[in-house]
């Protein structure tokens, strides 16, 4: 279980308790956090679950795989801390994770 804070681009925060094994995307979608569309349901096929991982957490979330990186190349407003949230698995180690959402997912 991990407590994850999602911050919309407007600054609005959503704090969610996510079970281990779920992805950071799934937890957001199941609680209707606006700004994460995740149309493909986590198949790494749509790039609409882009998030910015708080720099303090980058070491724990790890780096994007090559597939994910190729998708991110074409997402909007990509930064060094950009990830696709469907590729980040929730675990106890991520308790307290903070991610920010981009302005647009399209």
């Amino acid at each position: 279980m991990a407590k994850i804070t999602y911050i919309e681009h407007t600054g609005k925060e959503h704090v969610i308790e996510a079970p281990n094994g779920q992805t950071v995307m799934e937890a957001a979608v199941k609680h209707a956090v606006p700004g994460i569309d995740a149309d493909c349901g986590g198949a790494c096929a749509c790039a609409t679950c882009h998030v910015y991982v708080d720099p303090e957490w980058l070491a724990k979330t790890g780096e994007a795989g090559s597939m994910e990186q190729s998708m991110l190349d074409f997402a909007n407003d990509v930064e060094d801390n950009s990830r696709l949230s469907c590729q980040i698995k929730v675990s106890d180690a991520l308790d307290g994770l903070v991610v920010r959402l981009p302005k647009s997912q399209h």
Partner: protein
Amino acid sequence: MGEIKRVIIIGAGQAGGETAQRLRQAGFTGDITLIGEEPCPPYQRPPLSKAYLAGKVDMDRLLLRPANVYSEERIALLTSVKAVWIDRAGKKVRIEGGRELPYDALVLATGARPRKLPLVGADLEGVHLFRTAADIDAIRPRFVAGAKLIVIGAGYIGLEVAAVARQTGLDVTVIETAVRPLARVTSPEVAGFFLDEHTRQGVRFLLGGQPAVIKGKERVTGVGLADGGELPADIVVAGIGVTPETTLAQHCGLTIENGIVTDAQCRTSDPNIFAIGDCAARPMAHFDQRVCRLESVHNAVEGAKIVAGVLTGQSAHNVEAPWFWSDQYDLKLQIAGLFQGYDHVVFRGVMADRSFAAFYYKGEKLIAVDAVNRPGEYLGAKMLIQSGRTLPPDVITDETRPMKELVASAR
């Protein structure tokens, strides 16, 4: 349309579920009733022929939203309920049992029905259609190593089932009446790649095969062929396409032509009734405004976005180029655009590397991409198609230049 206080959505699949959710997200405060024939809340269907069949994910993870969210958001979710009649003049929906529910706007998201095998024996135990979680739950007890599986139909679903089956250790034969797999959905070149891959994985193909009868007493024991041959089977899965579910729409006189016909705003021939998802056909911005019926997540979600926008008076939704995907073994196929009507295809990368993209052109215009383990090529081409830009074939295939750079240079 007058003031909209009551929205009824018939069909609680992805299109229907997303409509309810997006109406609330868009600030709609009126009544929403979501009617579905299945016993569970809306869920994602694509994983059914992939991770769900493989037993890697359970139903909870497939749900679009947890069951409790519907009541929290004042969405009346009626499961295991069948709508039986639409009274257009009285703006009411009658459900099984006789109850009538009034609406100001009605959304038909009734989906599609899998085609049944038109063969004697199609009702035998062990012969399965592939559409709902219940269909897969019925297959799984005998979906075990060593069992003999015959898949009839080599479309994406048939091949995805074949892939999971091989990975689970089943003995797999695919019967396809056409001379190649994926004939309706991709080029001969890409189809050939998937045929080779499945063959290497141990799937037997009977192309141009004609199943004539399903054999067995209570349970299936085999498939008889038109040439007199017979193949033994413990399980038969039919993946021979779907028929749009238009019964209700037909009975109330809406215009139907391969699906319930709508305008670009998903409005049917009755201004108070919308139709979205697999059951509906609308003009496609990225396909010369031709009226198409697409069976895909993208189309389901897009219909939901459009209708939620129209019903809440928001600005027009920016339509995407159609996109699809299929997972088979370690191959991720990602598709954007519609390849129908292409006149030539070029390749970036080579098939032998199991990582390549096929770009489809109509004249100079890029109209579609099939990308295998090439997400960058997929997304890049999707952006081009969406914005109406193109790249010359000799440029798009130049692997010395990164896809991102090419896309940025396109006009």
